[in-house]
């Protein structure tokens, strides 16, 4: 039978649907991790390391243990007995990571002891009484220093601080460089920033009366269940997935925190809660994003055709090899961005330093890559004396070239980059902006226009599948069980909207419940724009199973062949005989009633389960070594106008236009929100946010919101948003994953505008965040007449 969705005409998909989750959030009715309280629950606080790098000789917890309310104090030595080390992305037997420092301190603020007490206040008081003796070593803050042969080793048993070193060549890179009309080399710097959700990470653990270790956490990946089983050495684990997460953007993946509360709950036989305070979160929460130095070489023709890229990256991973390496390799899924560049080399170094670990924040390393690609296009245009937009248009993959295979073998599903660019220039009134700029420059003002495009790969880890269970209960209501919890992506609403479309059931009659690790739902996680592709498709497929079951039941009851049943909304009727019809409610009553009224062999009830295994393009193709494939590729094109105050170098974004294309939009309210919000994050990364470390002491200089600056409603411009729809052939509705694209395009667009504003002074922007201080320094160099203003890509 055909699905109601086929043919591209939908009743509900694509129309704004009020977001179900919003009704509870506006009342203060969201239930976050810190709202969970269990009987006899204890609280935890951390004693942090005061220095960045040292041999930890001893930890004295005796004073802390005798403080009022303290139940126990856990140290690294205790954990070695209680658990396996925290798993890391690379197999590095000599990089051993425990939630608390064991015999070395590897970054300032690293947790050394965990105090468990009857209240958080009592735990904090006692944490101040933990003392430690240590012998200081040189803090390694700069990965380029950590790479030197004489640098001290962070993990002595490992022979180097460099733990990742790969280089892949796809296409005739050397030949292109040898034959090129022009070759250029640029350096770029992407400083550390991250999602910094307003809710810090938190978790609660208890051992239930039957011996099951239960965990609740503001964690975005429910598949953590399997890791907990391994790390805590018990098969009896139940990770709950039914709390609201106060923002993640990839950053809510605390693992050591969960193991710590688990260890504390096991030791005390009481529930234990740990909610990071802001300093614990910023200094030691393993939540920082990419931190990179780039060298980019380009081969180009005089006409502006880019023939090859050679990209070298030094990634500052932090003290342990958490989730950082994944961030270095993610860009290989879209290595040439929207351009038909035939050859690319990509590689570099992942280096351990005295900083907290990385997390795959919003785009998992694609954001700096999009930044350096778009910055490179601007530089090439400038160095060839060509127009920035013309060079883009000239190099774009054309709409008729899809599906398009890039160097390495990833295939882009669909796209219309020239179309989005045209809409962007038109809606921004680009010609008028140029006139405005000429007038501004004549008046001595620093006014610039920037453009940037960015690819937004969607459907990460598609090969891991995604499950759902849909049941129609005896009264005809639908209950969908999903295997994870959300951090603001409105998944309950998306599942509801698809069931509404596919089964015709009223929104009020649909319940979406979030499961737990023992609920039997095969689930991945909302990473890498994954859930529209994976959850959307699995709900679509599972709905079809339910529809088939209802059809079979209707045909049996109405004594016709299944082929004679047609479906209209919730009505299953005999074709051509509108009077012979059964509603879902009536069918449900039959399905849960006496077996004689059901088709022989049909299971009682209406319960269907489905696991979508992912599209063939991901599950059945082998790529060249190092390359990655995502199912769908969304696209953003941004046009920005910026003005720099010539006296204070304050930056103002005076116009911001976005063209966004994620194929079919399921709920415009939600997708618009991702795009606006992405611009917000991008403004932060472009202009303000920086986890700066003191180069001498290794102390984190931005560990509070007074020092780590984030944009407010003042700094984020009003965004004019326009949608282009280029459907994906890989999704039942033609939808593509999205939510990262706007963030991953914004820093390049803003840098482009600021560089354009400062062009009369010959200044180039090669680093984010772009601060008034940075512009001041560059203006000083420019005024001194040396050519250093455009040349650093460094602090």
């Amino acid at each position, binding site marked *: 039978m055909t699905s109601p969705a086929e043919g591209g005409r939908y009743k509900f998909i694509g129309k704004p649907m*009020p977001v179900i989750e*919003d009704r509870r*959030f*506006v*009342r*203060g009715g*969201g239930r*976050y991790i*810190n*709202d969970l309280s269990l009987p006899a629950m204890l609280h935890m606080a951390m004693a942090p390391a*005061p*220095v960045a790098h040292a041999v930890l000789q001893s930890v004295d917890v005796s*004073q802390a243990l*005798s*403080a*009022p309310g303290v139940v126990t104090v856990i140290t690294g030595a205790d954990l070695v007995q209680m658990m396996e080390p925290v798993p890391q992305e690379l197999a590095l037997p000599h990089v051993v990571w425990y939630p608390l420092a064991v015999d070395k301190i590897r970054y300032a603020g690293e947790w050394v002891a965990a105090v468990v007490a009857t209240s958080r*206040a*009592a735990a904090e008081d006692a944490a*101040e*009484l*933990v*003392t*430690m*003796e*240590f*012998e*200081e*070593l*040189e*803090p390694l803050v700069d990965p380029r220093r950590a790479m030197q042969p004489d640098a001290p080793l962070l993990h002595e048993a490992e022979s180097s601080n460099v733990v990742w070193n790969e280089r892949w060549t796809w296409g005739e890179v050397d030949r292109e460089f040898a034959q090129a009309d022009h070759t250029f080399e640029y350096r770029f710097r992407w400083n550390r920033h991250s*999602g910094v*959700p*307003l*809710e810090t990470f938190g978790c609660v653990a208890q051992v239930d009366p039957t011996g099951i270790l239960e965990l609740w956490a503001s964690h975005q990946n429910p598949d953590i269940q399997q890791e907990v089983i391994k790390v805590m050495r018990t098969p009896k684990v139940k990770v709950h997935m039914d709390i*609201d997460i*106060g923002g993640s953007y990839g950053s809510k993946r605390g693992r050591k925190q969960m193991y710590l509360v688990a260890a504390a709950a096991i030791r005390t036989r009481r529930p234990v809660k740990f909610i990071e305070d*802001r300093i614990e979160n910023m200094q030691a929460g393993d939540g920082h994003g990419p931190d990179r130095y780039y060298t980019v070489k380009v081969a180009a023709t005089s006409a502006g055709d880019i023939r090859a890229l050679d990209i070298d990256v030094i990634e500052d991973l932090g003290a342990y090899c958490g989730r950082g390496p994944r961030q270095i390799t993610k860009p290989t899924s879209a290595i040439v961005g929207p351009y038909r560049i035939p050859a690319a080399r990509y590689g570099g170094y992942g280096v351990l330093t005295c900083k907290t670990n990385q997390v795959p924040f919003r785009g998992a390393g694609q954001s700096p890559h999009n930044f350096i690609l778009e910055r490179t296009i601007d530089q090439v245009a400038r160095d060839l004396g060509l127009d920035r937009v013309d060079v883009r248009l000239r190099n774009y993959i054309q709409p008729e070239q899809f599906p398009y295979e890039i160097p390495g073998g990833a295939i882009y599903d669909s796209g219309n980059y020239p179309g989005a660019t045209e809409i962007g220039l038109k809606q921004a009134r680009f010609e008028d902006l140029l006139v405005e700029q000429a007038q501004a420059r004549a008046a001595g003002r620093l006014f610039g226009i920037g453009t940037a495009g960015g690819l937004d790969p969607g459907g990460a880890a598609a090969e891991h599948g995604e499950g759902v269970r849909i049941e129609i209960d005896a009264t005809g209501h639908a209950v969908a069980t999903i295997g994870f919890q959300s951090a*603001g*992506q*409105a998944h309950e609403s998306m599942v509801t909207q698809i069931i509404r479309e596919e089964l015709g059931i009223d929104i009020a009659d649909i319940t979406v419940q979030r499961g737990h690790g023992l609920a039997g739902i095969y689930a991945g996680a909302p990473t890498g724009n994954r859930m529209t592709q994976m959850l959307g498709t699995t709900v679509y497929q599972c709905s079809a199973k339910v529809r088939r079951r209802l059809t079979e039941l209707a045909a049996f009851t109405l004594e016709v062949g299944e082929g004679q049943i047609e479906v209209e909304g919730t009505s299953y009727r005999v074709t051509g005989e509108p009077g012979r019809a059964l509603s879902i409610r009536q069918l449900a009553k039959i399905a849960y009633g006496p077996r004689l009224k059901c088709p022989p062999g049909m299971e009682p009830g209406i319960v269907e389960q489905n696991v979508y295994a992912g599209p063939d393009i991901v599950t059945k193709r082998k790529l060249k070594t190092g390359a990655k494939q995502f199912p769908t590729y969304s696209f953003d094109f941004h046009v920005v106008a910026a003005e720099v105050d010539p006296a204070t170098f304050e930056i103002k974004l005076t116009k911001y236009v976005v063209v966004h294309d994620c194929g079919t939009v399921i709920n415009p*309210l*939600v997708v*618009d*929100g991702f795009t*606006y*919000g992405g*611009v*917000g*994050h991008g*403004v932060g990364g472009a202009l303000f946010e920086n986890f700066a470390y003191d180069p001498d002491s290794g102390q984190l200089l931005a560990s*509070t*919101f007074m020092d780590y600056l*984030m944009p*407010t*409603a*003042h700094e*984020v411009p*009003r*965004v004019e*948003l326009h949608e282009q729809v280029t459907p994906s052939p890989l999704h039942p509705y033609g939808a593509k994953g999205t939510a990262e694209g706007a963030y991953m395009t914004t820093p390049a667009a803003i840098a482009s505008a600021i560089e354009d504003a400062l062009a009369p002074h010959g200044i180039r922007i090669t680093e984010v965040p772009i601060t008034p201080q940075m512009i001041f320094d560059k203006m000083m160099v420019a005024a001194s007449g040396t050519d250093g203003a455009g040349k650093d890509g460094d602090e």
Partner: protein
Amino acid sequence: MQQSTGKSEAASQKKVPVAEPTFITISLTVNGAAYAARVEPRRTLLDCLRDDLVFPGTHAGCEHGVCGCCNVIVDGALIRSCLMLAVMADGSSVETIEGQADGDELTPVQEAFCAKHAMQCGYCTPGMIMTLEDLLRRNPRPSEEELVDALSGNLCRCTGYEQILQAAESVVAAGEKEAETA
């Protein structure tokens, strides 16, 4: 850098036992109902509302007065409840997010937040709504600049503020329309 040995600060100090906490009983009105709480002098109003009373809708974001997640209205003034001690609220009248809706009936600001999807994760939302309530009581017809100014004391990491401003503007526009027809 020279290697040095060190001891963390507390080690060099004499043993200072932490004092047993003392408690003070306060009484206050929250969303129109009277409550009493027994709190340490150092307890913040935020912790008191969330943990001693029954108002978990007010959220902790930074606990140092920057983010606005914990905004509530005390005796008619918008305040950061993480920067006010509970004992300072003794005898006060406090309004939190839980007191906004009347049963199932949401306030115009809450309805507008739903209509425009002015949130994603919902964590900053209670503080945002309290800030707007406070502004609209003082200034029912704020300009865009005044709206941005008022909201700039609240951080949001999800929305980029656009749909929040759209929601706020729709409330102001509805108010203006009502005033015209009245």
